[in-house]
């Protein structure tokens, strides 16, 4: 990808959204499943890997807690990334609706 803001994976997009409030890993998993009406079920290994990478990028940060169950929250740069992603999704959505409407596929 040569875009300035490459598309996020569905998993990362939802993990970042889930972290607008502080949550631990299992909390992320539950909220994402709930938000997507059970469509997106993230594996624990996948979430853990994503959290590690997101921390490295500085898009989320760990909160000081009791240590055992770490909680995470989105950072300002993480929020920026989400903003760009929403713009990208809107572009995809608008173009999809416009063209399918002209064609009549979309009722």
């Amino acid at each position, binding site marked *: 990808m040569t875009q300035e803001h490459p598309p996020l*994976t569905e998993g990362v997009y939802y993990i970042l959204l889930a972290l607008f409030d502080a949550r*631990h*890993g299992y909390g992320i998993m539950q909220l994402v499943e709930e938000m997507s009406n059970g469509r997106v079920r993230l*594996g*624990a*290994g*996948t979430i853990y890997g994503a959290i590690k990478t997101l921390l490295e990028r500085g898009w989320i940060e760990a909160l000081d807690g009791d240590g055992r*169950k770490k909680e995470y929250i989105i950072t300002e740069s993480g929020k920026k990334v989400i903003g760009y992603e929403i713009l990208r999704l809107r572009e995809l959505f608008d173009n999809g609706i416009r063209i399918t409407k002209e064609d009549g596929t979309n009722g």
Partner: protein
Amino acid sequence: MDKYRLVVNPYDIEKWVNNMASQGWHLKKFTWIRFTFERGEPGSYIYRHDELERFGGASYEDEYLEFLKSSGIEQVDRSGNFVFFRKPANDGPFELYSDKKNKIRKLSQKISLLLSLILLNLIIGVIGLSGILSVQAIDWIKLSMNITNILVVVLFSIPLIKLMRVRNNLKKDLDLFTD
């Protein structure tokens, strides 16, 4: 009950362990080749394996295992960096990795390990055999060793091809879909 299997293709082993579980035999512990099962309710658990990163560091491992535990995932047993986990089947589908890229990465590690093992044995075997056959008196010990080399090559090639096929299918999916 003890059963013996060599872990070459971990995905085959996982399938087998889940098959055993559906017949009411639940994995209790395992080493490299020995798997111990105990009687239980058929199909009450889903089993998944993982291979921990060898150089991830101790804190990485602790954190990861703790993380899985807090997600309601039970560690069955561990041998080296190979771990088996399980979760009650009532909780719904259970996968450790829901994304294809992680799966592809893990498969690639396995494939390169198998490939180097096969190549090493092939080279030693071929050089050895050509050396032995070019002299008059045959050294039987050397000969049997080199035949073992060739056997290893043949035996490990089958899981290698299987793993590569799985990886290729995942890669094709990635052409069309994101994770």
